């Protein structure tokens, strides 16, 4: 009996999460994932080299996807925003990293096999 399921292409990379894949959001998540206790908005802004508006917009997207949590309080009469990666965010980031690594390994393998093919080709 033949399967009705179509063959999966070799380079589909379904798990390459589009929410995480955007450059600025990847930068924000990488900063947060390596600081599990969380980061203040100002620290995150300087680490990712983003403007206030840009960072706020990306944080809202990440919070909407339940990848991060944002807490706001007042410290010495100044509003203080603190961002932390959630358990779900950490899990999805690791999955994303695994797929990204696979993409790079596939490219390396492709380049290596091309190089090997060229090396064995008989000149005309």
């Amino acid at each position: 009996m033949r399967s009705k399921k179509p063959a999966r292409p070799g380079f589909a990379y379904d798990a390459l999460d589009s929410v995480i894949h955007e450059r600025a959001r990847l930068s924000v998540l990488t900063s947060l994932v390596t600081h599990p206790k969380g980061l203040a908005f100002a620290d995150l802004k300087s680490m990712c080299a983003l403007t206030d508006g840009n960072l706020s917009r990306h944080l809202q997207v990440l919070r909407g996807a339940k990848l991060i949590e944002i807490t706001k309080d007042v410290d010495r009469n100044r509003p203080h925003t603190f961002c932390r990666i959630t358990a779900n965010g950490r899990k999805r980031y690791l999955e994303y990293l695994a797929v990204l690594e696979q993409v790079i390994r596939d490219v390396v393998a492709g380049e290596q096999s091309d190089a090997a093919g060229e090396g064995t080709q008989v000149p005309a």
Partner: protein
Amino acid sequence: MADLYKALAQIHAIRGQMARGTEFHGYGPETVTATGLLAGAAAALQAAVLKDPGDHAARFLLIWISTAALAVLVTGLQTITRTRRVHSGLVSHMIGSAAESFLPAIGAGILVTLILVRSAPRELWMLPGLWQIFYGLGIFASCRFVPRQMLAVGVWFLATGALCLTTGTGGHALSPWEMGFPFGIGQLLIAAVLKFSYREADEDAQ
């Protein structure tokens, strides 16, 4: 091609950084409890078959080295299995960090045992105390990525080790309870700390 290898190295570095900031949950409380009970059983076995352990150090070593080897084997296998489950994506980094922290103390314990057996067999009475101190040092070295309360267990092993070295000569030399009591209770304490802190972490994650 160099850029690709650089990207792979960066991914490896990110995983390493994540692993350093992650509390290790690879040790299973149930297995650690089992090793505590195993220590108690080994002490009971020694009490039954070795009436005068001070004169039969080789048999004492056989009982306790076999017990330790079995405990390490069971704990090691279980740790690898559990780490694969709870630290998916960081397995090699987490196991590497755990081994890097704990194994030097175990290695030092093995080395000192070999030296005493070869060069100072009359001082073998010191082994239970020294083993407990080395084990305690291994726990201290692991404290940066296991639950903080584990420090108290490290103190327990240092204290029992010091006590054994102070009182373990003469008629008490190589007594079964110099090993069974500290390791039995100590392993149960480790299991309790792990169980309590894993439950707390699960509640925080929800």
